[in-house]
């Protein structure tokens, strides 16, 4: 695979990852642009022959974390969760909204592994390299994060889904 083709594939992955991180297509593209600008500036640090994808994801990850910290200093108000891009039925959208909302409640260290693995584009080891953590740490965060996500969704879901079912029953 040529470098151009490889890079194009990775940029597609970055856009997908950025969308889940930001929940906003415009902000996602801004994040990818910022990532590419930084990658251009740091291109001399890339070791040819090494894997390009973790290098790019690490830049995006760090850029996103920096931006989150900056945003936190600007406002402590929790941002409204934008509606996800419509793809499926109302129930799926509600579930997705719940999962995305639950993800927001997780610590960043657990949130990132869940999203990276959900992309289904890399191994555990490669995803760990993207986040610059040892594989054992990554696995532990992924597992704990998944269980925490499940508990949050179950807690939230019980109430909201009951309301939804009641509304459907009223209609």
């Amino acid at each position, binding site marked *: 695979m040529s470098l151009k083709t490889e890079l194009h594939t990775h940029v597609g992955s970055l856009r997908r990852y950025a969308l889940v991180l930001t929940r906003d297509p415009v902000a996602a593209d801004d994040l990818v642009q910022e990532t590419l600008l930084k990658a251009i500036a740091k291109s001399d640090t890339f*070791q040819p022959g090494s894997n390009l994808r973790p290098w790019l994801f690490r830049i995006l990850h760090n850029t996103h974390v920096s931006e989150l910290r900056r945003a936190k200093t600007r406002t402590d108000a929790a941002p409204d969760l934008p509606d996800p891009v419509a793809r499926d039925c109302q129930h799926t959208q509600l579930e997705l909204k719940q999962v995305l909302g639950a993800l927001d409640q997780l610590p960043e260290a657990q949130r990132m592994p869940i999203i990276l693995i959900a992309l289904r584009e890399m191994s555990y080891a490669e995803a760990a390299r993207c986040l610059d953590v040892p594989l054992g740490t990554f696995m532990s965060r992924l597992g704990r994060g998944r269980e925490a996500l499940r508990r949050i969704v179950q807690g939230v879901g019980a109430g909201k889904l009951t309301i939804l079912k009641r509304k459907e029953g009223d209609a």
Partner: protein
Amino acid sequence: MTRTDTPDPGLDPDLMAYVDGTLAPERMAEIEARLAHDAQAREAVAQWRHFGNLLHDYAASADDRPENLQIAALERQLARKLQKRRWRVVAFGPVVQRIAASVLLFAAGWGTHALYGSGTGNGGTVYPQFVSHTLAEHTAYKLAAFERASFEAYEMDAALDWMSQQMQQKIDSPKLDRLGYQVETARLAVVDNQPVAVFYYRNPDNERITVSMTPRALEQPDYSLRVAERDGERMAYWSSEGLHYAVIAATDAGSITTLAAAVQE
């Protein structure tokens, strides 16, 4: 068993590998048998998978977005930077440095002045026949007039055997893949009743290199390495072990020397 006594499914690497499809096939059945009897693990696995599917589909919706032209421009810029970076690392890497040094030593008897002096410039410079022909091959790209046979990359082994017979000398195709170039085609041309083996290379950025090898007759001069420029094309040519070599590419003087060194090796 109380809730606190129950092992956390999130700490079970086999369950995670099962959900993520990374479990070895021979262990799949084992985990499935376990799940059949473990309602808690079954529920956890089902939910992880479901949440993963939701997130995956949401992420994939980015593919439905139109192309972002600014991202595309930055992507091209980064590709160029990384390509240059790859080139620099290869060019200054130990292997190429060693072969470049060997070629420069080979030319040292003539001195640096001779290496970059002779043949530089356009006006009226006369190059040896094998250089002029290679330049014509490179510029016209596969000059049909002189062709006797042409081979694709996958036929290279047979091509080299046949061309070696025709040239009555063992030749090998230069290995330039470490510099990012793959051989595309090889041709045997006949110029002034003399066979010339010509190899065409290309890198992922579509940059071409033409390399030729011509048997050197006893009465012909033995050329030390020379680097010249003509119409934006750099040429390196020299003689070694009964062959004249010419390498032509649209590149700078340092890079053409590196390419020459790689061909020589």
